[in-house]
């Protein structure tokens, strides 16, 4: 089975021929390798042709945080065919929308909302303030536009990734 692996902007194709419990035969960059991945808790040991590599892996279903030698990497994998299909869809959808959605970069308490509905804002203008771990963090507009939607209220507790507001680019399509 063919997989497409991405780490940041780097990509790699990897083919798994056979898998038997922790062991597998793979092909990578035209080279066949026998590999083994053993698990203890969420610590993993990769045995790679004599090398022993200690890793930490969290996440599931194709989205993983992998820790290697003190560094953490976001690794995404997809079946190669599925990835091609998704890419096609993404390109088709691109450029249709002109709005930026702003999500909470961290969990916290909405301390103050500066941006009013319908207000026009400049790039870098303050939209709201989130209090997280006793620090006040300013959320600013990524680009110029009109505040189209404000999805939170002051004193509201939000999780990371909560939709805060939407800024429509001036002159952008609807």
């Amino acid at each position: 089975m063919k997989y497409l692996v991405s780490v940041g902007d780097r990509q790699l194709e990897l083919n798994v021929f056979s898998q038997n419990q922790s062991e597998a035969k793979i092909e990578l960059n035209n080279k066949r390798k026998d590999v083994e991945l053993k698990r203890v808790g969420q610590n993993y040991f990769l045995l790679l042709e004599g090398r022993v590599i200690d890793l930490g892996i969290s996440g599931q279903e194709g989205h993983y945080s992998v820790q290697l030698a003190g560094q953490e990497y976001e690794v995404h994998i997809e079946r190669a065919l599925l990835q091609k299909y998704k890419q096609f869809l993404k390109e088709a959808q691109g450029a249709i929308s002109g709005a930026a959605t702003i999500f909470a970069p961290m969990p916290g308490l909405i301390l103050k909302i500066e941006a009013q509905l319908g207000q026009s804002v400049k790039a870098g203008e303050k939209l709201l303030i989130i209090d997280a771990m006793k620090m006040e963090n300013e959320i600013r507009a990524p680009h110029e536009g009109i505040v189209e939607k404000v999805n939170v209220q002051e004193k509201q507790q939000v999780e990371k990734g909560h939709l805060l507001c939407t800024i429509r680019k001036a002159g952008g399509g609807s």
Partner: protein
Amino acid sequence: MLKKILVANRGEIAVRIFRTCKELGIKTVAIYSEADRGAFHTRFADEAYRIGPPPAAQSYLQIETIVSVAKKAGCEGIHPGYGFLSENEDFAHTVEAAGLVFIGPSPDAIKRLGDKITARTLAQQEQVPTVPGVGQSIKDFVSAQNAAKEIGFPILIKASAGGGGKGMRVVANDSELKNALERAQSEAHAAFGDSTVFIEKYIAHAKHIEVQILSDGKNVLYLGERECSVQRRHQKLIEESPAPKLTSVLRDAICESAIKIAKAARYKSAGTVEFLFDSEAQKFYFLEVNTRLQVEHPVTEMVTGLDIVKEQIRIASGLSLSFTQSDIRPRGHAIECRICAEDPENNFLPSTGLIEELNLPTGPGVRVDHGIARGERVTPFYDPLLAKLIVWAEDRSCAIERAKRALEEFRVLGVKTTIGFHRRVMDSGLFREGAYTTGFIKEFERTRELSEDELEILAIAAVLKHSQEATAVPMTTSVDGATWKRAEQL
């Protein structure tokens, strides 16, 4: 010696204090908020009592509740740790009024030194140089504008009651002043219940050097200095001792200045006198006094071999210091890396979640002070500090190599942490050379090119993990290896 102590804190520092108490045969009492039910620190004490809901203002900052819990539990003393009520003079006062011992300086010394404006004046009286600035409280925009004009931009707005970088803002020009003043005042009010701020010249490329002092009321000693210039948001991330690139003449001068200030304030207990060191001009300026145990105190413990918490408790019990200045002979080099639940790739924003896995480094010269355990949740209510890695070695370059090794052993899964950042700092030429300043994080090249070999390893590991998920009988997100066992049985 005190027989039973309540620690009015949580996390790693509560655990740290309990450990010393245990060694001294002192009974211990923990307190916890509803968010900290069953938390790591509560398991280290002989008794634990719930004191209120998650927000600190309703739990760890509740003076009356904490003191009454201590009384009811039959404690003789309270250790405040750092943060929370540690530099709150009312707290120290209430503790003493209840007939308990406050393990720290007197309420009077906290007042004199804890207020940054008064401390500044005291330093000037002792002929210790201070950062150019206006040593008066700034209440409104107009007086802020006047002060800025007098000093000249860039300026630094600081909370008079401040600490931990809260209520602090660097202002580059007039247009930013109003907003920065409001934020600083509001943060100061939220954190310390006091919105008083003052203004100093902002010295962009200075080293942050501080002196650990210890006083039993009669003898004031210094335990050497620490350099803490690697900071984000004016909060320290890496500390080391001795300070690299500091001549012994200047080291002595800085330490002597710290002693002068402590003596003038009739200081008793452990404390830290902070200085800014302009390495170009080779000049130092008094910054502030922290009238409490510091987060980074283990760095000094590693080079001196002393237990600062033990000394604090002995002094609070009325005992004299059992050693003199000449007995203190720092040896080797120590470095501390603060492991915080933050995302260094995303401006060090806090990260919360479940600790899915926790591997702590061990081995020669390695100490870890931590306040979390696997299976616990990091909540947004408190400081993001999860653990401190402290390494000791015979010299600085060996200490850096040891820190690298230990950081590679250190693993926290489930939240973003500063581990990877620290590991890259240990490779940074600027850090290794030792001439770094408080501007370090901005100058530091944080991205690191992934090698072809690393990319292959990540790809193989992720794909194998994925295909193992597929062959395992779905048991969802087990963290105890059960999924794996099932897969092996197939």
